[in-house]
């Protein structure tokens, strides 16, 4: 990543996942911010839950208690992730479940130029980027975009399938205008064909766990359609045999982008069911489909029973929260619920119970 001075590279085994880490950032903080859960509890070096092994490179052990991190462990390169900070590029081995469905794809920094911009809805633009070099990724992952004149980068999920990106060299993003958001405003008001952007990716651990071989349920709302769309196209293109259901919610008919595309897919693929729903459509309109919020409609469609499936959620935090509750009440638990979590500073402040690892 650019724009950040004195950062090192942190590689987390056994995932083989690499990310940037700043010199005053703890290993745990960097891992969590990159969506990798390392078990932890006290957060300040006393309990020893977040023990990791430093395989390569050097770390400062920080404030680790001598009772939580023994001398012999320090000599063997064991560190507490919650207080260890990098002194060089570091490779650590952590107590992480190896995910058989994760592909180790190295991060790439590339440039991209805007090839096409299209209005998908009154508030969402489709933006197609021509990439300077190929970008392998897993359907569901996201990229960080940097635009000249705007500080920092923003994350956007990739909206088209890997097969399409590979075939056309075009990466599609669907960008909703966020009031007051510098970058989304730039895309909506200033971006024009031919503009050049910086792009880093692929990021994230949101992809289909195919090895589970279970029916897949996508719950998407607002501008959260991108990842599910990429994942569904990818599943169908690779002959996924199990049922796929997309429950897709918007406020009204005008916001329901890619509706036609999914209706067509449902007609041509027997394993794919499409359930669009609108939460704020005028009563008098001719909308024949479901009305209500995504979690309500999902509950109705599945009769409140979700066990045996895997659910992939994408949308605003309130929607995710409501969906998790509905799924758990329908006896689908943490191990089978997936969503991309962007941890903000505000989340870290909130008092959380340690009941859940990732949801």
């Amino acid at each position, binding site marked *: 990543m650019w724009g950040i001075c004195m950062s090192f590279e942190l590689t987390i085994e056994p995932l083989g996942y690499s990310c940037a880490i700043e010199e005053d950032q703890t290993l745990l903080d960097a891992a969590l911010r990159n969506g990798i859960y390392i078990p932890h509890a006290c957060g300040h070096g006393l309990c020893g839950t977040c023990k990791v092994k430093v395989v390569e490179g050097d770390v400062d052990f920080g404030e680790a208690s*001598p*009772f939580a991190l023994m001398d012999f*462990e320090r000599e063997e390169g064991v560190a507490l992730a919650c207080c260890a900070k990098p002194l060089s590029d570091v490779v650590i*081995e952590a*107590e992480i*479940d190896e995910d058989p469905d994760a592909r180790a794809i190295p991060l790439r920094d590339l440039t991209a130029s805007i090839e096409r911009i299209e209005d998908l809805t009154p508030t969402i633009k489709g933006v197609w980027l021509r990439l300077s070099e190929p970008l392998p990724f897993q359907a569901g992952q996201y990229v960080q975009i940097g635009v000249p004149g705007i500080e920092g980068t923003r994350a956007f999920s990739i909206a088209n399938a890997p097969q399409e990106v590979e075939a056309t060299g075009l990466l599609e993003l669907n960008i909703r205008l966020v009031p007051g958001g510098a970058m989304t405003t730039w895309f909506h008001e200033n971006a024009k064909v031919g503009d050049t952007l910086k792009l880093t990716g692929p990021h994230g651990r949101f992809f289909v766990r195919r090895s589970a071989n279970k029916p897949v349920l996508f719950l998407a709302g607002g501008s959260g359609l991108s990842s599910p769309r990429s994942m569904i196209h990818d599943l169908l293109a690779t002959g996924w045999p199990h049922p796929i259901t997309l429950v897709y919610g918007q406020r009204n008919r005008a916001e329901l982008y890619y509706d036609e595309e999914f209706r067509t897919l449902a007609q041509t693929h027997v394993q794919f069911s499409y359930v669009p729903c609108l939460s704020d459509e005028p009563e008098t309109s001719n909308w024949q489909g479901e009305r209500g919020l995504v979690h309500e409609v999902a509950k109705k469609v599945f009769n409140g029973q979700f066990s045996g499936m895997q659910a992939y959620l994408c949308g605003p935090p309130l929607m995710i929260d409501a969906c998790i509750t509905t799924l758990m009440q329908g006896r689908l638990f943490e191990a089978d619920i997936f969503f991309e979590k962007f941890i903000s500073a505000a989340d870290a402040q909130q008092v959380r*119970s340690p009941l*859940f690892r990732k949801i």
Partner: protein
Amino acid sequence: MDTQVKKLGLKERYAAMTRGLGWETTYQPMEKVYPYATYEGIKIHDWDKWVDPFRMTMDAYWKYQGEKEKKLYAVIDAFQQNNGFLGITDARYVNAVKLFIQGVSPLEYYAHRGFAQVGRHFVGEGLRVACQMQSLDEIRHYQTQTHAISTYNKYFNGMHHSLHWFDRVWYLSVPKSFFEDALTAGPFEYLTSISFSFEYVLTNLLFVPFMSGAAYNGDLATVTFGFSAQSDESRHMTLGIEAIKFMLEQDPDNVPIVQRWIDKWFWRGYRVLTLVGMMMDYMLPKRVMSWREAWEIYGEQNGRALFRDLARYGIREPKGWLDAIDGKDHISHQAWNTFYNYNAAAPFHTWVPTDEELDWLSAKYPNSFDQYYRPRLEFYREQHRAGNRFYNKTLPMLCTVCQIPMLFTEPGDPTTICYRETDYQGDKYHFCSDHCKEIFENEPEKYVQSWLPVHQIYQGNCFKPGVDPTQPGFDPLMAVFDYYDLDFGRDNLDFEGSEDQKHFAAWRGQALQNTV
């Protein structure tokens, strides 16, 4: 040949080390080998779904604990050899240590027994190994606490017969009966009571106050023990969390059973913590925070986050939740008042706080202290100065479930003592609250067997063999103290004028002054 063997990840290495530790028995059917795994009504379909996030092997456990213990004993030795006890704030602090060795350390030993037992009765090896390690942790904690505190026993009263007292003395039956209730439950209820409700939900309210109290008051030995133990606690808390999730996810029929256990054990634990609240507000010469503040942070705030998450499983907050919140302004004061009155029968000292300390309590308890509790303490002090230090010589009525004297007031009305009662098979039973009453009514056949210290005294079971209560001039209370092995006048009564007070003043004076 140069073959590259893929290095195993930590998880795979653990699986390889523990492979085959759990097997299907063939000489005897599984349900006969594990009779308790099902009798509580908890349904488990897949024991392999148990997640053990620590994945520690026994080999690593010994190595790790060995070094920890070495460090701890080095600190304890140094503390003892340098007369570290002279560095504490003042001798009143030692009474918090007495309460700990009398009432908390024996629970560590009970926990050791409990985890050894339930580890035997669970089917999945993940759970068995976790329980086995915790069982070892707990006996280590019992031993290291005993050693850390033994230095105080050389110099102060009130610790010499702590285990003997644990089995006999009235207020120690509160923690004792709490843990025996858990030990005599089935394995899943045991995990809910100890690992979840106690170790996870309430542990911060037990451990943090004692350990930070020790730190604030110059007790290095206890602080060091605390650090040593805390590195085990995360494993214990995780066991509690995993146990709850496991039960709730395995079968929907488990949800109401777990809910009833959470209701019960939240309240049982909360009642035991009354002793901690009293310790925090009254027994630390240098205070860390008030019980009310600790409860708000560790009880209310963390509890709310937890029960918000548990709601997703269909679990609501415990039934006693609101009454527990209501009690935060009162229970520590009501308990201290009781001990002040019954101090002849308790082997530690009590006292009226200094003016400065009373002001601190007034500031920390703006809604209750000046109105209900301060005038009473000031009256006691006046009476004491006038030579009328009052010691209650009657015996209090106890709650049949928590075994605390009926000292708590009605929720919402701190001027009325809360009494509840119920009839069972022709006998009347008394309770301190709706929640203790409900616990009894769910399992009356268990609680009618309670060993209630006051009842036992009245039944004549608390005198030494050969004592004849019909002798003229028989003093039943003195006979009970004799049975307790309580050294009257040294272990008990007011701190003012106690041997502890005099000795400490003399020793500290010696340490600070040059002898000519």
